[in-house]
């Protein structure tokens, strides 16, 4: 019993680490394209498959991003931005349409600048926050378009792979716990 519980915990830990690493690599891999990133649709997919466990993935990702790029003012916005996306996904998880998820991902891209401007509201006042947000609108629109297209194209395949991985892990752990309980 205990060994199967431990196996479950280890599997979960490794999976969350792997999925965080995929977020980091995906973001780094597309860093040369301004505001085009796979993190949004990946977090949506992760949330739909792993539920609230996505928060451990998100904060591992945020920590690694801070270690790579430095803990600047942008990092504080990362502490809440991705969690907002995860909460939104949990609220809308009954949706099965890829196009609707693409719209949600696009809308999140549009809101990204506004959400990032909150630390500037605190540090520089409403004028600074508004100027920061308004100047970035073209980039938010680009972010929206990138999120929309990436989600439309990759969401279903990636979701399928994650669901298979999750199902396989669960069945492996179940088989392991039955063999552990089997009397000799």
């Amino acid at each position, binding site marked *: 019993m205990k060994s199967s519980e431990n196996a479950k915990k280890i599997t979960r830990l490794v999976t969350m680490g792997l999925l965080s690493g995929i977020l980091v690599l995906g973001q780094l891999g597309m860093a040369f394209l301004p505001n085009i990133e796979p993190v949004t649709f990946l977090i949506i997919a992760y949330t739909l498959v792993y539920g609230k466990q996505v928060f451990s993935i998100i904060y591992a990702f945020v920590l690694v991003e801070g270690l790579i790029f430095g803990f*600047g003012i942008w990092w504080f916005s990362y502490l809440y931005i991705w969690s907002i996306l995860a909460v939104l996904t949990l609220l809308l998880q009954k949706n099965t*349409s890829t196009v609707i998820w693409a719209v949600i991902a696009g809308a999140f891209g*549009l809101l990204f600048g506004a959400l990032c401007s909150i630390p500037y509201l605190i540090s520089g006042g409403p*004028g600074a926050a508004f100027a920061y947000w308004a*100047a970035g609108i073209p980039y938010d629109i680009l972010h929206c378009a990138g999120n929309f297209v990436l989600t439309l194209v990759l969401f279903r395949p990636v979701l399928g792979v994650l669901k298979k991985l999750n199902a396989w892990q669960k069945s492996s752990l179940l088989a392991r716990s039955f063999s552990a309980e089997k009397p000799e």
Partner: protein
Amino acid sequence: MKNEPKNRKKIILAVAALAAVIALLLCVYHFTKGKTSQGAKTITLEVVHKDQSSNSFEIHTDREYLGEALTDEELVEGENGPYGMFITTVDKETADDANQEWWCITKNGEQVNTSADQTPIADGEKYELTLTVGY
């Protein structure tokens, strides 16, 4: 089966709403962006280095934005960021990221809330680039 027209309607409404928000944001951007000034202009740039020494440059340009004017003069180098060029080197001094160093743009000593590529310039204006330590 019956749900298909309903779902299709939801999808069309969602896409239309997204397009409407994009159009609204474009309007906000158009009415809030600083007005650019065309034609020849002269601006002054003061560069304050880490050792507090400063150099002053008079720039004659017909560019509309600060970033391109400085790039033409080969005074700055930078990386492409989400808001245009992120200045990393000014007057041959490079900010050391590991020490939380960065180049701060000010205009007549006052904070500028846009990147160099998004800061419109006009004749007679004075800008400062100060190597700052700490975020």
